[in-house]
């Protein structure tokens, strides 16, 4: 580590000042002459036939340019499965679904005219839970899913409310359980909810007179937006430019296709004029997709020595009314279904189920935070039944190099040291003093642990690119397709390039505003793969630029390029460092004293594409879909009032094996943020539904996320087992910190009260009820 120049230093993030002082400009800060504003009328029903929509008054209202309904756009769109109309068509499938749009000269006029639209509904039977959706005579939310186009990896079941089923069959499940001395069965659940990113989604679309389309959007995935618009509307893809300036928080909620398709259609309806559509907070919570809900049934067996032998898992994901990313969340959960445990016999069916709930998209952890809640609770229940310390049980069964994943892929030397993570987490939380301690007659302190693992769920050909150009002072411009969503990858990429050139990272200027015409191709800023993949591309681009610099300098210095070294802003002879030229003299072409110029500017091109990935077998799940695994252990300490169920989280800790640390403070904050988000998820969050499946907490008055004053003490440690194919040995760490937290918290609270708490969120009242055993 000490040999590094920039890697491993905690340089301040490049955007810190603009963001801390509130000067960062976001998309909704842009207003310009001629811009039109759209507003959405949303469904008040969870499932209803649209009998009629009267727009005649709204269209006559002041400033209104157009009023559009589902009839105007008879198409279905989607990310993996084309099941969603841009505006509800024929019927509404969830509370908050956009039904009509108004385009007006001002936001005020658009919103005022919403009241003039009258919609007549005829209520339909509601599917209010995944288990209800799977019942024999459940109402169908999508009558004919066989007509929808979908990618081959998604396997819907026509005639049912199942949008995808992923199967894992590892070993023989029957003989696996025959070896078990202790078996537990338990069920778990949590409701769908939202990411609550600080910036609500916004998109602006414009179509030029020659048909070029410009979409400006709060998106994590500008290239996916571009290709899906091209695919769905038959537009030559080169005519579409998607721009994505820094985004005020994504957490998965801004991946895929969000408002962009609708706002494109709206612009098209008014002759291509610029139209802006901004989600209200309420729409951002409910109308746009949130996080997935789940019901899980787990059967787990171990020997009397405490060795896990078999797991039979049923994951029922509540994807809500439309498939979106949910069908891949359920697939990712199958691929990683056991959590980081060595289990020889595994059977898992992971289903994505349609319900009349707001639909789900990617959420930080992508299937892993969900499965980990079920698995980590089950591990505690099993270890307790066996009579073994739950930490020791985890240590004994933690997955290590040479073990196989549920998809039968053998974990390699890059897997990291999970047992050491467990030991470190146990030390940080002081497991030795005991995992349940009495504080007073009615108060106990208790601890719980949860392990994490995560691999990116992404296409096998996921790629990234970096282009480096140079300024006259030899400072470097870095262009990539990664979007800044708060994660800080730009700073880490600057450090990687700075490392290659042995210069300060503030000499590397990252282009903040991504647009798909000038940025090199990229999959999406998702799956915690940006640092790993764009980092590799940055190294590749640096090497390319360095070889060009050496070539120009070799002409000037009259030496072979191979004898040269680039560092500290100079190009010089390796064995005679005093002989050299400043980088600025060769970065944009060398000019001789007489004015002759040679070679021209350096343009570094770098690329990376995932290596050796494959899909999975539809019957057994066998395959190699995971690029890298990040593993870790987390623990939580709580103090619980046994009379009323209220509790404080005292401390949350995490030890994660992240490979080489590019920027230790950024990494630390990323994990602290994840611990906080995981706690908020498990303690507070989730939609509340009334008996008509309307969301009753669709604003931030009622949908409570953790506030600053409510955070516990956080402690984070890292192990640095290098990722062999990662940039300087680094691996992804963006999402992972959330994964083990819900399990750890529910384990701590269950231990405190001596009864299982298997349902999230863990509100004091839910704990009180469990203590009292009242319904």
């Amino acid at each position: 580590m000490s040999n590094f120049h920039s890697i491993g230093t905690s340089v301040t993030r490049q955007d810190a000042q603009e963001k801390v002082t509130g000067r960062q400009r976001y998309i909704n800060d842009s207003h310009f002459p001629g811009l039109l504003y759209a507003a959405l009328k949303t469904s008040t029903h969870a499932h209803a036939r649209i009998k009629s929509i009267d727009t005649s008054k709204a269209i006559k209202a002041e400033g209104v340019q157009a009023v559009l309904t589902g009839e105007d756009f008879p198409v279905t769109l989607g990310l993996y499965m084309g099941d969603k109309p841009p505006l509800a068509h024929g019927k509404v499938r969830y509370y908050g679904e956009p039904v009509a749009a108004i385009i007006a000269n001002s936001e005020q006029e658009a919103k005022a005219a919403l009241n003039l639209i009258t919609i007549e509904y005829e209520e339909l039977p509601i599917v209010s839970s995944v288990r209800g959706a799977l019942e024999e005579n459940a109402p169908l939310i999508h009558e004919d899913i066989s007509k929808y186009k979908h990618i081959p990896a998604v396997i819907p079941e026509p005639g049912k409310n199942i949008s995808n089923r992923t199967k894992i069959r590892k070993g023989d499940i029957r003989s696996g359980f025959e070896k078990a001395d202790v078996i537990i069965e338990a069920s778990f659940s949590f409701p769908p909810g939202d990411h609550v990113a600080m910036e609500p989604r916004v998109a602006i679309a414009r179509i030029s007179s020659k048909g070029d389309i410009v979409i400006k959007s709060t998106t994590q995935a500008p290239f996916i937006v571009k290709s899906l618009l091209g695919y769905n509307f038959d537009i030559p893809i080169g005519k579409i430019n998607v721009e994505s300036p820094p985004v005020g928080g994504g957490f998965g909620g801004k991946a895929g296709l969000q408002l962009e398709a609708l706002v494109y259609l709206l612009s098209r309806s008014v002759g291509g004029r610029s139209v802006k559509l901004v989600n209200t907070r309420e729409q951002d919570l409910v109308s746009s997709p949130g996080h997935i809900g789940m019901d899980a049934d787990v059967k787990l067996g171990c020997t009397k020595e405490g060795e896990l032998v078999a797991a039979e898992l049923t994951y029922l994901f509540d994807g809500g009314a439309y498939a979106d990313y949910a069908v891949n969340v359920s697939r990712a959960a199958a691929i990683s279904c056991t959590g980081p445990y060595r289990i020889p016999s595994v059977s898992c069916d992971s289903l994505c189920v349609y319900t009349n709930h707001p639909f789900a998209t990617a959420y930080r952890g992508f299937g892993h935070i969900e499965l980990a809640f079920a698995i980590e609770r089950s591990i505690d229940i099993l270890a307790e039944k066996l009579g073994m310390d739950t930490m020791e049980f985890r240590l004994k069964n933690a997955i290590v190099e040479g073990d196989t994943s549920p998809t039968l892929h053998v974990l390699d030397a890059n897997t990291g040291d999970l047992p050491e993570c467990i030991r470190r987490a146990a030390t940080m939380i002081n497991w030795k003093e005991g995992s349940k301690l009495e504080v007073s007659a009615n108060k106990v302190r208790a601890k719980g642990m949860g392990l994490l693992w995560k691999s990116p769920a992404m296409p096998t050909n996921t790629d990234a690119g970096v282009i480096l150009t140079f300024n006259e002072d030899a400072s470097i411009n870095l262009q990539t397709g990664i979007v800044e969503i708060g994660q800080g990858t730009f700073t880490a990429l600057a450090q990687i390039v700075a490392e290659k050139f042995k210069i300060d990272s503030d000499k590397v200027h990252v282009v903040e505003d991504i647009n798909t015409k000038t940025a090199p191709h990229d999959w999406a800023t998702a799956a915690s793969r940006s640092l790993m993949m764009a980092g590799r591309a940055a190294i590749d681009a640096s090497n390319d630029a360095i070889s060009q610099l050496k070539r120009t300098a070799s002409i000037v210095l009259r030496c072979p390029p191979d004898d040269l070294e680039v560092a500290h802003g100079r190009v010089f002879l390796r064995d005679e460092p005093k002989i050299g030229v400043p980088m600025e003299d060769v970065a944009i072409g060398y000019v001789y004293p007489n004015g002759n110029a040679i070679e021209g500017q350096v343009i570094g091109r770098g690329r990376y594409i995932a290596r050796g990935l494959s899909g999975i077998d539809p019957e057994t799940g066998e395959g190699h879909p995971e690029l890298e695994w990040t593993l870790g252990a987390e623990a939580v300490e709580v103090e619980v009032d046994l009379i009323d169920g209220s509790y404080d989280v005292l401390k949350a800790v995490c030890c994660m094996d992240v490979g080489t640390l590019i920027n230790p403070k950024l990494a630390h904050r990323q994990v602290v943020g994840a611990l906080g988000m995981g706690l908020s998820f498990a303690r507070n969050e989730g939609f509340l539904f009334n008996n008509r499946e309307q969301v009753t907490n669709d604003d931030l008055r009622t949908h409570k996320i953790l506030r600053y004053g409510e955070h516990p003490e956080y402690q984070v440690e890292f192990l640095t087992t290098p990722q062999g194919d990662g940039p300087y040995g680094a691996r992804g760490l963006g999402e992972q910190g959330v994964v083990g937290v819900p399990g750890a918290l529910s384990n701590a609270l269950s231990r405190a009260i001596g009864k299982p708490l298997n349902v999230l969120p863990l509100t004091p009242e839910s704990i009180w009820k469990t203590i009292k055993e009242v319904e």
Partner: protein
Amino acid sequence: MIPFDFQYYRPDTIEEATMTFKDLDAKKLSPIYYGGGTEIITQARKQVLSTGAVIDIKNISECKMHEESDGLLIFGAALTLTEIIEKNLFPFFSKVCRPIADHTVRNKLTLGGNICGKLPYREAILPLLVVDSKVVLAGPEGIREVPITKAFDKRLLLKKGEFFVQIKVPKDVVSLPYFNRRREKHTSVDYPIINIAAVKSESKFKMAFSGVSALPFRSQEVEDFINKKELPPEERVSNAINKLPLPIKRDQWASSEYRKALLEKSMNEMIADLEGVSL
């Protein structure tokens, strides 16, 4: 964004305010008096509330009064909760105000708005209900001063066109032993699922409640049961709870069973705290 237009008035005197109201009402503009706007703005944005005109009372000096005078503590209706908390003339009052909303909102949210708004909690009234305070109300027919127990019954009883100017609290109540317990569903910045504010005066409890039922209340009958000191505390508490003037409510924040359990726990804590009995 508030998608409808409305008129804004900021009178300098009480009379101007009430006359403005009368005038706007005659024009069928459904005027409302306006304090900090935290509720009006948010409700108007959601179009739950609509009005043709607002009358901002923050420029009326009586509404901003915040002083001790002639043995009375005077709190103007347009004081923000932050001002009340920071000046701290009445620590019990400050304590009850502090957990209302969050700091940023309390910088705007006024005493009058909290008590006269549509939200059913009206927590700032609780400490004022249990001491002998008097409210000053102004309307087209003039100004009147009314004992709080007469002026407040689950809501401030305002006649049409009237607004809440200030409240006067006898200074000596500042020394009364007090108790406040506010419980939320989970996070502290939230509405109360129960809020009890109590003082002990001449060895008797006076208590006011919010969050427990549909509206805040004080009840003589409840206090009579709590003050039956010959009975054990648990019995006093359960008798009192059985006599609440409104049913214990059930909503998405809490079930009535949980509210009742918290009420029992808190009232027992109150007795222990103010009577010096250890539980």
